């Protein structure tokens, strides 16, 4: 960490640790000494099994939690709270049940006082981008799981964040839909490049999407175990020999089959 920060450095985490005090327990250390850099427009995947602090790390970057030690910067500025420069796609969709698809997607712009006409236009653009054209007036409960998460993605995108944080966005989808949504994610990202931190417990998902994979330790407190740069061209094929080689390498590093 002595080198000069690169000019395209977007996110920098420095020795971030977090311990939660749970009811009736002594503190549970959830992540410890996590340091990582994310370059501008890089697609970084944080790969780790269940319950290793992935969500906590993402929530710290989002500014929803404060680290006990260490700090996070965005464009060199320390993160002190949540803000519209970072979009978060939640593990459990977290759509507003009382808003339509349009109402959900335009919420960020509405909260920031963008006039109705203008925000409708932007929201429509992202609804189209995620492939939900025609569903603007639907309520979340009328949508399938995959469609719900498209709304979640569009809602985050519509706020024009510098960084997109995705927390196991496809964890609740069936394998088929999941694969399809991965392709969609790659397509959307190619279309509107952003710095992405994508959390998953699925190794194939990671290999399909990532420029770089951060592999987490499989137990609490979560730490970084290893890092893999995936220099393969897109669109990728799950069955490509380089991918399979990497897959074997990463699997060998993990106690659990991910």
């Amino acid at each position, binding site marked *: 960490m002595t080198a000069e920060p690169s000019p395209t450095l977007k996110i920098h985490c420095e020795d971030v640790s977090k311990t939660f005090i749970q009811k009736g327990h002594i503190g549970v250390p959830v992540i410890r000494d996590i340091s990582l850099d994310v370059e501008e427009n890089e697609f970084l995947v944080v790969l780790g099994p269940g319950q290793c602090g992935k969500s906590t790390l993402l929530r710290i970057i989002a500014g*929803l939690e404060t680290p006990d030690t260490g700090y996070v910067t965005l464009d060199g500025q320390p993160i002190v709270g949540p803000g519209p420069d970072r979009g978060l796609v939640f593990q459990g969709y977290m759509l*507003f049940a009382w808003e339509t698809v349009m109402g959900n997607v335009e919420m960020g712009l509405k909260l920031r006082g963008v006039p109705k006409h203008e925000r409708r236009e932007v929201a429509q653009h992202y609804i189209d981008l995620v492939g939900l054209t025609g569903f603007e007036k639907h*309520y979340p*409960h009328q949508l399938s799981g995959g469609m719900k998460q498209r709304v979640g993605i569009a809602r985050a995108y519509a706020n024009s964040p510098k960084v997109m944080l995705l927390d196991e966005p496809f964890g609740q989808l069936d394998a088929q839909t999941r694969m399809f949504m991965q392709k969609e994610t790659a397509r959307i990202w190619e279309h509107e490049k952003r710095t992405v931190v994508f959390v998953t417990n699925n190794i194939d998902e990671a290999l399909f999407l990532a420029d770089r994979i951060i592999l987490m330790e499989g137990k609490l407190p979560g730490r970084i175990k290893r890092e893999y740069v995936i220099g393969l061209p897109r669109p990728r094929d799950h069955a490509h020999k380089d991918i399979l080689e990497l897959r074997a390498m990463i699997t060998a590093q993990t106690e659990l089959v991910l």
Partner: protein
Amino acid sequence: MSSSIANETVGSASVREGRTLWEMLTNTYVLYFVSLAGFFLLWDRVAYLHVFGDSLARPHVVAQKLYMLSQVKFAGTNLAGHIWVSTQRVLIGFGLASVIAVPLGLFMSLNQYANAIVKPIFDLFKPMPPIAWVSISILWFGIGEFSKVFIIAIGTFVPCLLNAYNGIRLIEPELYDVVRVLGGSRKDEIIQVSFPASFPAIFAGLQISLSVAWTCLLAAELMNARDGMGFLIKRGMDTHDPALVLGGMVLIAAMAWLSSLLISLLERKACPWKRSIENL
């Protein structure tokens, strides 16, 4: 080959026909009708055979009684008058309570200090059955209108407050995080999440309150009243007029049902995202 297909078609057609008849008989509305007709028939037979002596009136006698009351004045006013007096008591008591209890419940769940101050007192009064207030309210406020409205207000206050309170308490906390991440303030969290998310619970509370309100009304009017539907029931009891008692019961039930329907309609207006759940 072709003959076997033909045979199959004939076979399945006859099966389908049999099914249609069965489906017709088991149609929900047909069953509703069968069930209601059976009930009234049973009622009529039981009354006709004097199973309960002469204290059960036949359905058509009850209907005649109600019709008669709608034509002439009874205890100063006709049937519509009695219905209206009772309804007014419910509306005022229920209206007063909900206008205070719902905002208070919302406020308590959003502000920990308000909660710490109000909750202990509220918990103290919560388990008290509302009808227990009847006697004390007559002692305090006499037998006028106010004591009746007071009982209804007290009874409806608890479910109104409780549902508004829990409606906000049970909101998924991560929904607030969504607002914060999108750049919203604490005020935005309340307006965009707390209020809309608690609407269904508030309406559920209003529904419960309304049924409590009619119960309290009846209790208050049975104790002392010179008019109203409860008064009709009481008078029927005193003069041994089962048709009048049953008529009053039917009227109260009808009004309670109607008012609950009204709240449901309001809820549909206020929560369009829930309407589509029902219509699915």
